[in-house]
């Protein structure tokens, strides 16, 4: 499907160039971007708008590559991106894949991902920030710099905050070292918008904004199953039902962090399964060792809260 998408756009670009044509299909095959996109489809559940945007970006980059070969493209496209969305919606995972795509298309030379937060960039005292930020920039060169919760860099309440200095150095690098590094900012949507309002320079240098939606219940269940599969566990029949109930309750509770909450719930369930198996004092087989049952999940605090009548109503539904 992707192959057709990409194939349709380029025909016109090649025609505009006149003369010798470039086979975009061949370009796609050579770079093996399709492989990464397929992997993205396989490993990431849901996130339709994100996948669509990444395809768009991938085909855009492929076309610019073709245009460059025909001498139509003067400046390389701006590649800095902004990923917004709630916690646990897969921003870091997608950033890793993005680095891979950019590497295969030849827009970054090494394709590694350096993940940082405010602490890694901003120093403790005067003169500490610049070397620290530059150190990180140097490490990220040839790859992708992923700044998680980027809005913490800007603290308007403290005008002497060193974050501003880090932002300025970042801006300079984003402009002057475009060939060397791609910056991806990530964080909550609303805070990111405020951050961009206060830092117009940053906003104007970011070409691609991708919004990560929250997962719905069916997607979360599929994610849980995929995670368990990767760890060689599975839910038994009662466990499936319990997991669905768990998600339905957990999703309405505060501090719900999408896939991350699911991962944590599964980790705790594995803990309970281990102690259940241990206390049963029976001989265990492979199936018992890998099956999570309803009681492992139903022991969760999420269910206990819900059974308390008055609590349930108070629980911000």
């Amino acid at each position, binding site marked *: 499907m992707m192959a057709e998408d990409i194939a349709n756009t380029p025909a016109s670009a090649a025609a505009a160039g006149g003369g010798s044509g470039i086979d975009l299909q061949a370009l796609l095959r050579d770079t093996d971007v399709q492989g990464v996109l397929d992997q993205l489809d396989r490993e990431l559940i849901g996130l339709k708008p994100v996948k669509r945007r990444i395809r768009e970006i991938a085909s855009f980059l492929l076309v610019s590559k073709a245009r460059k070969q025909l001498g139509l493209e003067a400046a390389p496209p701006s590649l800095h991106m902004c990923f917004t969305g709630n916690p646990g919606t897969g921003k870091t995972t997608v950033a890793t894949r993005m680095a891979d795509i950019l590497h295969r298309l030849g827009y970054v030379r*090494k394709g590694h991902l350096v993940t940082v937060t405010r602490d890694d960039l901003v120093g403790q005292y005067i003169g500490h920030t610049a070397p620290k930020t530059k150190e990180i920039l*140097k*490490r990220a*060169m*040839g790859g992708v710099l992923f700044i998680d919760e980027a809005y913490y860099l800007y603290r308007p309440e403290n005008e002497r905050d060193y974050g501003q200095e880090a932002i300025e150095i970042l801006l300079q690098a984003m402009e002057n070292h475009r060939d060397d590094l791609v910056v991806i900012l990530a964080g909550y949507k609303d805070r990111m918008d405020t951050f961009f309002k206060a830092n117009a320079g940053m906003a104007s240098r970011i070409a691609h904004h991708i919004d990560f939606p929250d997962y719905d219940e069916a997607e979360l269940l599929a994610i849980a199953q995929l995670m368990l599969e990767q760890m060689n566990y599975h839910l038994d029949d009662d466990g499936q039902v319990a997991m669905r109930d768990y998600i339905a309750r957990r999703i309405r509770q505060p501090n719900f962090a999408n896939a991350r909450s699911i991962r944590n719930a599964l980790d705790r369930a594995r803990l309970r399964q281990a102690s259940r198996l241990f206390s049963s004092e029976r001989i265990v087989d492979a199936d018992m060792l890998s099956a999570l049952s309803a009681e492992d999940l139903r022991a969760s605090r999420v269910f206990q809260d819900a059974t308390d009548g008055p609590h349930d109503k108070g629980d911000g539904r």
Partner: protein
Amino acid sequence: MRLTQGAFSFLPDLSDDEIRAQVDYGLERGWAWAIETTDDPHPRNTYWEMWGTPMFGLKDGAAVLYELEACRKGHADQYIRLCAFDSTRGVESIRLAFIVNRPAEEPGFALQRQDGSGRSIRYGLKPYSADRPQGMRYRE
């Protein structure tokens, strides 16, 4: 007199692309690059000034060139060399070092003779540039 120390010193000065190729070669082998400067060209002067700390954990040569560019701005009139440190157990030493920047004028060395007891003579080398204090050598 052209100073010949380190690797490639009998070749013409390396271009930035050639430097970059050497840097990438080192990074591929997991060496950490460091930038050092001096204005004392004496061959026994092995301790050059460090420009920043050695750069561990880099993936791409662009970062070294970026740092080298910054160093050249501050020390255009001095010798600058790149050193590759190999941290492999049993090596733990500099594997490759070469000069990437030199002063416009290199006055060379004076041969100094010292009469010893009897008719023996001791020889020494002194860079002409070392007549002036450190940091002011090679300045116009």
